């Protein structure tokens, strides 16, 4: 356990050395909310009560998604830059190595989302300790699920990084557009709403909104959402552990 924590702490230290990026992400988030979010909420007004708040949480989910995806990308980059063989030579099991990656992902997600989330809740007058705690928990579970999906897909990158990047970008576009990140499910056309139910972002976004007190009539059943978010996190992390265990040997470097 100590070794897992040491490796995770090393990765998190590297993450913290790039703190300027966090300020940039927070600043861009604030700009996106104050300009794009505010203007879109004026256009949407009437159909969705407090669309700015709805949009803010959606943007938060996008940040979690990016953070989860970056964990997968880091994993792939480590493999191709030759760092993976070094990590595998350390006296730590492969599951321990994956657990350290997951902890790194949790830290990355927390750093990117917690300050803006608390800021939004404070400025919108919706800040409660319980609401914020459970919303962060939902977002973290979602982030773990996304990391698991990305690492599970890394077997593609072991063949070709370009195909992996293109595949992940395409998958990301579909997961975001077909989810309830920016619009409630009941406003989606009938031919899109079944696809939306296949995106884990739909469940993560609606669950976080439910914890924060958004109108439940516009959201999915929170028990279903919590079950799916948990299942995706556990399922994809287990899958990634199996995949990595089997194919990690012989990864081409460079």
């Amino acid at each position, binding site marked *: 356990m100590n070794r897992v924590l040491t490796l995770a702490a090393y990765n998190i230290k590297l993450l913290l050395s790039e703190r300027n990026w966090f300020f*940039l992400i927070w600043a861009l988030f604030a700009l996106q909310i104050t*300009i794009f979010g505010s203007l879109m909420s*004026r256009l*949407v007004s009437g*159909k969705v009560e407090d669309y700015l708040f709805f949009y803010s949480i959606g943007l938060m989910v996008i940040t979690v998604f990016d953070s989860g995806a970056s964990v997968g990308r880091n994993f792939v980059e480590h493999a191709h830059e030759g760092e993976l063989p070094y990590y595998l030579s350390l006296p730590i099991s492969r599951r321990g190595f994956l657990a350290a990656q997951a902890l790194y992902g949790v830290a990355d997600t927390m750093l990117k989302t917690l300050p803006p989330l608390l800021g939004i809740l404070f400025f919108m007058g919706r800040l409660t300790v319980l609401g914020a705690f459970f919303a962060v928990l939902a977002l973290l579970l979602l982030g773990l699920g996304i990391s698991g999906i990305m690492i599970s897909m890394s077997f593609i990158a072991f063949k070709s990084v370009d195909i992996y990047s293109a595949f992940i*970008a395409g998958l990301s576009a579909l997961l975001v557009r077909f989810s309830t990140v920016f*619009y409630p499910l009941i*406003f989606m056309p009938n031919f*899109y709403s079944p696809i939306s139910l296949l995106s884990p972002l739909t469940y993560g976004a609606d669950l976080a909104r439910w914890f924060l007190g958004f109108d439940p009539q516009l959201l999915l059943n929170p028990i279903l959402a919590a079950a799916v978010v948990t299942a995706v996190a556990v399922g994809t992390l287990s899958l990634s552990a199996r995949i990595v265990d089997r194919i990690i040997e012989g990864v081409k470097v460079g």
Partner: protein
Amino acid sequence: MAVLISLSVSDMLVTALVYRGLMNFDYFRFLVPGIVVAGLFSAATDTGRRIWLALREGVVQYYMTLPIRTSGLVVAYILSGGLGGIVYSSFLLVIALAVVPHQGIVNALLIIPFMFVLSTGIAGLSAFLASISRRGEIYWVYAQGLQVSMVTISTVFYPAQTIEGFLPGPVATIARYNPLSLAAGALRDSGFGGNPLDLSVLGTLLAASLPLAVSGALAYWVILRTIRLRGKP
């Protein structure tokens, strides 16, 4: 390119379509021409990324050994950025014309050369930012800033009246005269709406785009000349 196209097409066929159900006007018809212009912006700014990579990875040293003058190299980069933007946005325009009822296909075709100039202008601007990004990953900060300032503060996603009702006057004026707003407006009014082409809008589009292309070309030329003389940027 395939990734960029999938992003833009999903914006058109999913995002725009769903938002139409949330608004009191035909937002699909409004947003689709905007996505064509936003796509042009994304493809043209790729020039900056390529220049930044060339400077960072030393590929530019190889380019300078080629039997081509520095000015030729600069013009080639800016033109390729312009062409990349126009090829990409033309593809999106074909899809847009297929999914949105239109009344001015000839006007849409006439706007394309002006969009090419806009694309070279954006390529020049991103080349300028790449050229002044000497340190680490600072180019990506500039690139994000460029995207926020040019795409978010424009009429690509929302009508000018909405911006005027919310943002301060000077910012609303910048949004109105933003070259992306001018191009999106021309496509909406003349390409899809069937109104005659507004030459003053197209003139303003040229006047706003050409200085960007020239300043980018100049900045890149200065960097290349410095590398030629000193061996490093």
